[in-house]
């Protein structure tokens, strides 16, 4: 034991000089928040994401590499609302980093600063993989991104006061560019209002709220349970061979295309794969590209052109 302690002290002392000029280390649970941290913090931060855009953030293994990332993080940013319940608590408990535990300035739960939708009155696992704190996929409404940006800039300034000026300026600059972009998207998307959609999983309700789309069904019988033949047949009956006015079947890149293609074939509703975060498609190469690409894909599929559903990344 004594030997371990000595080694430990030695490592800490050796480690000190290296921490001197390091950037603020941000670990995001999802790529949208690492992208946002880079937009705000620029060169002041080093942001990484625990997951990539083609991974389903519900189901991630608490891998050793992630534990060591949490160990060294100054700020951990996650969507929260129990999206990462299956792995984040394990990372936090193994990483021995008190600065990033929930309740500390080093932990930011993005969904806590926006209005969460679909907060159930009561929860029962018979209803599937419920999120008692509401739907966690908040990033698909750009107004939410703006709110998280404000909170994130403030946190960065709080944790790294030396560079507070930079974070505040970075936030203001981002918000300005974001507001301009949102005005553009909203003008472009006006004609989508009122359209009906079928979704694989309830990942899109914030997008639907923003674009005023109407969700008529999900391919999953209950959240988190993969689509079943019974459920799909029932859907087919409900939608009919003309699709009953639904305009798209939407799924995320990491969700299997089998169910949506099956339904597309029988109902004629175009199946479309939309990026759920930065990096989900080639076009979604930044937060700005994410919403550009979502609109592009919706319009393309709507115009009856060959959609990108078959694209393999």
């Amino acid at each position: 034991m004594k030997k371990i302690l000595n080694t430990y002290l030695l490592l800490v002392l050796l480690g000190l000089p290296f921490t001197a000029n390091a950037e603020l280390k941000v670990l995001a649970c999802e790529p949208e928040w690492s992208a946002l941290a880079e937009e705000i913090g620029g060169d002041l931060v080093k942001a990484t994401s625990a997951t990539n855009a083609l991974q389903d953030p519900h189901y991630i293994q608490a891998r050793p590499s992630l534990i060591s990332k949490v160990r060294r993080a100054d700020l951990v940013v996650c969507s929260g609302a129990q999206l990462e319940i299956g792995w984040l608590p394990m990372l936090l408990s193994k990483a021995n980093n008190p600065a990033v535990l929930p309740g500390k300035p080093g932990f930011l739960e993005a969904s806590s600063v926006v209005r969460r939708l679909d907060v159930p009155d009561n929860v029962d696992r018979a209803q599937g993989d419920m999120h008692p704190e509401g739907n966690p996929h908040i990033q698909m409404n750009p107004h939410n991104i703006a709110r998280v940006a404000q909170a994130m800039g403030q946190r960065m300034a709080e944790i790294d006061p030396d560079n507070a000026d930079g974070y505040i300026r970075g936030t203001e600059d981002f918000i300005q560019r974001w507001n301009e972009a949102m005005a553009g998207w909203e003008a472009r998307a006006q004609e989508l209002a009122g359209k009906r959609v079928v979704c694989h999983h309830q990942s899109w309700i914030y997008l639907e709220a923003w674009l005023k789309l109407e969700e008529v069904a999900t391919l999953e019988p209950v959240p988190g349970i993969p689509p079943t033949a019974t459920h799909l047949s029932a859907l087919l009956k409900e939608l009919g061979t003309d699709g009953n006015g639904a305009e798209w079947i939407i799924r995320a890149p990491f969700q299997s295309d089998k169910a949506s293609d099956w339904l597309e074939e029988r109902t004629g509703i175009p199946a479309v794969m939309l990026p759920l975060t930065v990096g989900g498609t080639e076009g979604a190469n930044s937060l700005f590209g994410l919403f550009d690409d979502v609109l592009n894909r919706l319009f393309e599929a709507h115009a009856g052109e060959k959609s990108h559903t078959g694209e393999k990344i």
Partner: protein
Amino acid sequence: MKIRLRHLPLACVLLFCSQVVAQEGRSAELDALGEEIRSMRTEYEARIADLEARLDAAESRDAAPSNAEVAYQSPTTVSVASDNSFNPAIGVVFQGQAWAYNHDPHDYSIPGFPLGGEAGPASEGLSLAESEITMSANVDDKFTAMLTVPIHVHDGEVAVELEEAWVETLALPGGLSIRMGRFFADIGYLNDKHFHTWDFADQPLVYQAFLGSQYIDDGLQFRWLAPTDFYLQFSGEVLRGDRYPAGGAAHHGVGSATLGVKTGGDIGFSNSWLLGFSWVRADSDGRKTGHDHDHDHDSLLFTGDTDLYVADFVWKWAPNGNSRQQNFKFQAEYMWRNEKGEYTLPGAAPGPWDNDQRGWYAQAVYQPFPQWRFGARLDHLSSDTPGMMWEGTPLYPGGSDPKRYSLMVDWSNSEFSRLRFQYNHDRASDLTDNQFGLQYIFSIGAHGAHAF
């Protein structure tokens, strides 16, 4: 951040030094240092106050709703004067099984490896395995606590056990944490995994032979995670030594200790691995093993030292890290044990004992599509031959070559429910046994995140 990280430890060390040395005669140099630290502190305090003022200003600017699209409503907080809002997270795991054997499991033995702890096959026929109640919550800002209480039914009697009851630090600096209480020892890969997270319905033979299925004990655990790019964790434990592979709480109740190191990482997005080495030193004072270790008169008693070395390796693959659709897991552990001391057999005088034994298992579990998993496992044990004086006793391997082959398939409707079928071809002794098992695992309530 940088202020705290860079200067605070230094400042603390210096302040401490200055006070200690000051008593023995102040030196001008230390005065100067103290002065420097004081001025540093004043400067930072002023800067922080300035920043707080600026933050406040920024916040009040934001408070004016500039974007009217979705007005942010803070969640309505109603203060309720009740005690249950701080209730711990409670979960219950239900487990049941049915086993069929060629031979009576009461006669199960592995020649040369007298079994201790919970080792050995499950009851024949329909039975409940552990029903497990867990509770956990943060104690305050510096401690968190966990309780696991399995309820067994053994020969018709209900027994409530205490499997885990520990408190762990949350706020130690430098990547250090200390756990105290009763816990699964941090050795090997499977030892600290709960029954319901195993990929097979039973433990590998090495765990049964060397760790009494799972080594749980009371004591202190230290874990330190190195601040490296790759995962590197060191752990050490001091334990009471009252449970197999220790026994009798030797050395006035500090009879056992462990050391371990773990490392791991990713290869691309799809592969990740974990490698560990650990060492258990258990000093026993009349440790009971043998088939009827519940009854003193039939027990084999061991007094002496046990050294157990464990190497474990786990490799997981999932296409692009999405284990939901498809995944593969390979794990293998090797154990080597040396025991020195003396064994006492029922009705006999103590005899000297010094023997080396080893064993390993390797298993692979594949999920080709959602909800279904298929697995295979290979077990092997081997023992050096002890002195001829032990011939004819359960301690004598007598040229046996214990092996076991297992196959399993399980189906999970959600991550809270699992049904499993398992087949073992068990050649642990001359009595070759075909074992067929059915198992269910259901969990309700809080369900903690699983470790890698």
